[in-house]
């Protein structure tokens, strides 16, 4: 496109964003409920931001499924991302958490869209084509996934990574002295990599990157030799910079790596998605989950809905009709290198993520991380969709470049464009139930393409306006159907929206027991209902009938004071005995020794039998609000501090999940925490006055996480500063 005079693009961007916000106003305002995974991610964010705002880096969630370590959920969101702090800023500006969170999601998506525009601009070296790419992305259904998925958390940093990477490649390809620019763009790559590797599944991104590298090497191997040569020269001259770069990247891997090691221990389970039987890690995914839904199912599913756009709903893959018209118009073109690069990239990603094709099966067998992929269809959304957009826009560019100059040929090519539009129109009319603005978009596309390719409208304003209208008209009408088909009014609070970090003690000592239940419990009867939890809590949850909320009622009695204990062998669990303790409240805690602790446990059991011989038949004591011998002093998600004043040695069970990361202290000295009643924490407390403290995670881990937050923030500020300097130097 001829750049006759520079046109200010920001009004077009603002207009596009306003139209987009208008389309999703119901969801953005919070009137319509979040759906599916978006709801789960809202919970993770809410919990994390709440705690960070209070100055606590959360490591444990006592409110979820009997108490669980929070690391899995933090790795899901990539908790060290400094941009999440925007939510706190929005909240400080007076917004509710939901408004702040939704505002952040929209901001993050727009940031991704701008990143996509800039990447496309680098790729095309032209703002007009980049703007078309931006519009196609913004008005695709990727934006709808803000409200039912978490794809955006990977998409935005990934787009920006490719922006910085392309910049580095281009700078290294030139002979000019660009040291400062290369450094800043490498820091951009570093920051986005840190964000991506901070999540528990960076493998999606790694696959996209790997396929890009393979496609790039296959097509540009000669040019890449120069790039690598210059990179080596740059690294030789800036050894300290490269070392620091690598060190920071290495540090950002650590939380993910520790998390993976933790999940291999088998202490935590993901019963809804884990394969049955032995697996190396709890993160492994049952193949049934994967083979139920891959990328090809997503495409066929979407095509079913696209044949009647009035039924448009969440998870339907939609691109404005203009993209398809560009695709078909470019089908007869001679390909150039860039088209080949994009084509190979698309093909590889498609073959990898289509579980019905033999390639996926091969990769799953031979590449270790493929067993962790649960949602292969995500590749369609955060990689194939943007690459396809760039591909079709590149086709437009090539079409313009190859547009003939001879009159007869020009007529033929114009005829071809018209023919494609008419064929498409006939297809729409005969095979689908079209909406009115599809016709409008097809008409505008035809006018735009014929005009643009013949080079008639020289006024850039009209060109940008025409392409804007050709894309947004249909999209706006389509997005109006989303609330109709997928919108549910938000009528109740989401999890954590009501105060939740409170340790509420019961009012009475009453223990209502259902004796009949004991007869019916023989083995696991309930289907798994916990997404992620402790292995033995999950076991309890599956054997105790859920109808009468027995397990919940037991957990609500936060502290239980026992006079007697008995050993519980995890290899031979006496279910009846266990359930007598949990359902009937007998005065006998069941304690499990960790390997090497068996002798201590036996001695302690004998001791308390001797001390409390008379109390054999009484019921367990429940710590109520007015219980005098135990008083809670301090409580947050990671810690609990209480004081006791018993007249004899007692075994205290704190009904919160037992995990090996918990540490106990009595009057400042270490206190052993035992697995009590199969899934909870228990401890022997001597008579007299004592202060007990329970903490989850080590102090080192805690401060390491804070340190990482500061490191991420530091790199981000450094990057912003560098970009600012480059822009205005």
């Amino acid at each position, binding site marked *: 496109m001829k750049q006759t005079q520079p046109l200010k693009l920001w009004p077009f961007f603002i207009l596009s964003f306003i139209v987009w916000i208008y389309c999703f106003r119901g969801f953005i305002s919070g009137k319509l409920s979040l759906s599916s995974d978006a709801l789960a991610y809202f919970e993770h964010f809410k919990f994390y931001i709440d705690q960070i705002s209070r100055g606590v880096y959360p490591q444990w969630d006592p409110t979820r499924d009997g108490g669980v370590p929070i690391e899995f959920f933090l790795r899901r969101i990539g908790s060290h991302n400094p941009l999440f702090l925007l939510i706190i800023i929005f909240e400080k500006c007076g917004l509710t958490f939901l408004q702040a969170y939704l505002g952040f999601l929209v901001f993050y998506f727009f940031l991704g869209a701008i990143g996509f525009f800039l990447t496309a601009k680098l790729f095309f070296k032209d703002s007009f084509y980049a703007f078309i790419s931006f519009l196609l992305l913004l008005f695709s259904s990727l934006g709808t996934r803000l409200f039912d998925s978490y794809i955006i958390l990977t998409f935005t940093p990934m787009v920006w990574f490719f922006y910085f990477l392309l910049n580095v490649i281009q700078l290294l390809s030139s002979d000019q002295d660009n040291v400062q620019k290369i450094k800043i763009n490498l820091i951009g790559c570093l920051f986005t990599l840190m964000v991506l590797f901070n999540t528990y599944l960076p493998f999606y991104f790694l696959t996209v990157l790997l396929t890009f590298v393979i496609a790039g090497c296959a097509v540009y191997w000669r040019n890449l030799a120069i790039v690598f040569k210059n990179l080596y020269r740059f690294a030789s001259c800036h050894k300290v910079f490269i070392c620091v770069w690598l060190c920071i990247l290495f540090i950002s891997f650590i939380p993910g790596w520790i998390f993976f090691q933790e999940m291999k221990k088998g202490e935590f389970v993901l019963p809804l998605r884990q394969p049955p039987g032995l697996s190396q890690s709890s993160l492994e995914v049952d193949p049934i989950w994967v083979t*139920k*839904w891959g990328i*090809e*199912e997503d495409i*066929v*599913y979407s095509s*079913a809905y696209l044949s*009647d756009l009035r*039924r448009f709903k969440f998870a339907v893959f939609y691109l404005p009709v203009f993209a398809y018209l560009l695709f078909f118009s*470019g*089908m*007869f*073109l*001679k*390909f150039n290198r860039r*088209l080949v690069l994009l*084509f190979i990239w698309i*093909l590889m990603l498609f073959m990898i993520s289509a579980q*019905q*094709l*033999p390639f996926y099966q091969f990769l799953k067998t031979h590449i270790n991380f493929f067993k962790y992929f649960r949602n292969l269809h995500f590749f369609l959304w955060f990689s194939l969709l943007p690459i396809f957009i760039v591909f079709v826009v590149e*086709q437009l560019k090539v079409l313009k470049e190859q547009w003939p100059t001879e009159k007869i040929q020009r007529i033929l090519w114009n005829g071809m464009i018209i023919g494609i539009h008419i064929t498409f129109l006939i297809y729409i009319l005969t095979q689908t139930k079209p909406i009115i603005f599809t016709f409008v978009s097809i008409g505008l596309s035809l006018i735009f393409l014929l005009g643009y390719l013949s080079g008639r409208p020289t006024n850039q304003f009209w060109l940008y306006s025409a392409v804007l209208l050709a894309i947004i008209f249909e999209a706006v009408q389509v997005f109006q159907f989303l609330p109709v088909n997928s919108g549910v009014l938000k009528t109740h609070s989401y999890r954590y929206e009501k105060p939740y970090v409170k340790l509420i003690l019961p009012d009475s000592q009453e223990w209502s027991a259902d004796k009949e239940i004991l007869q019916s419990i023989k083995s696991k009867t309930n289907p798994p209902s916990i997404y992620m939890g402790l292995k033995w809590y999950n076991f309890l949850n599956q054997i105790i009938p859920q109808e009468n909320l027995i397990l919940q009622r037991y957990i609500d009695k936060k502290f239980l004071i026992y006079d007697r204990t008995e050993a519980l062998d995890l290899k031979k669990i006496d279910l009846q005995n266990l359930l007598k303790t949990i359902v009937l409240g007998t005065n006998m805690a069941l304690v499990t020794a960790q390997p090497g602790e068996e002798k201590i446990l036996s001695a302690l059991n004998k001791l308390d039998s001797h001390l409390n011989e008379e109390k054999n038949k009484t019921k367990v004591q429940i710590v109520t609000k007015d219980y005098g011998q135990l008083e809670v002093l301090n409580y947050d998600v990671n810690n609990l501090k209480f004081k006791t004043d018993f007249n004899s040695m007692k075994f205290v069970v704190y009904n919160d999940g037992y995990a090996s990361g918990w540490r106990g202290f009595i009057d400042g000295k270490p206190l052993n925490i035992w697995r009590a009643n199969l899934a909870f924490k228990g401890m022997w407390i001597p008579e007299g006055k004592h202060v007990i403290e329970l903490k989850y995670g080590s102090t080192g881990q805690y401060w390491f996480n804070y340190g990482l937050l500061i490191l991420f923030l530091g790199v981000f500020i450094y990057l912003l500063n560098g970009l600012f300097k480059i822009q205005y130097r």
Partner: protein
Amino acid sequence: MIKFIRSFPQRLIFIYVVLLAVFIFLLNGRTIIYKVQLQTLNRIKPESFQPLRDSIEKQSVIDTRKLQDYIFYYERVARYVQPLSGDIFGALGYCYYLSGDVDRADNSFKQAMKLSPEYFWYPYNLGILALQKRNSDAALKYFQLAEKADSEKTLLSIVSSIQIYMPLIFNRNEEPVPWLAERLAEGFHQKNVLLLYSEAFSRINQSQDSAEKKEADELIRKNLSSIRIQIF
């Protein structure tokens, strides 16, 4: 043109053609697509068939949105499932009829009758639709076809329609076969009545007396109001 053919291997369309051939012939593409379509159908399947069940049993009114969901589902079943069977179009025709789209209902029942000619309810429904359109000759033809239908085969078709008809019957507490047989017997009886109406109406149509015609028309309108389309 020659220039275009010569440059064909350099064009994008060439790659698509090659890939399509690889997909179809080397990777057994049709089987893959079929599998994928079945997976998709499982996801599109409405969460509950209760409203449709109630409509069949208790003649209750279905919410328009839910009805559209059923139509959407059965349309996709008709598009994806191979080999096609009459029950798919029977259920689809029934839903079209409930939505007020009589022409589509008519076409679907015709398609269903073509695929399952021995099934009683399809010609029966087509006869009713023809009568509603005051097309007595066509109604007569369809009721005569219904008369020839095999009740045993009709029952057998229903109970072997595991994916389509059985979900609409399955939650009944009682054994479904006696209930279905009873409905079928009622249907046969009703068909005899309607056959007589059709014959009479056909004869009146041939007469010149407009008052008689009007009277017959009124009679049919009254009697048809209580008769409903049924699929089993």
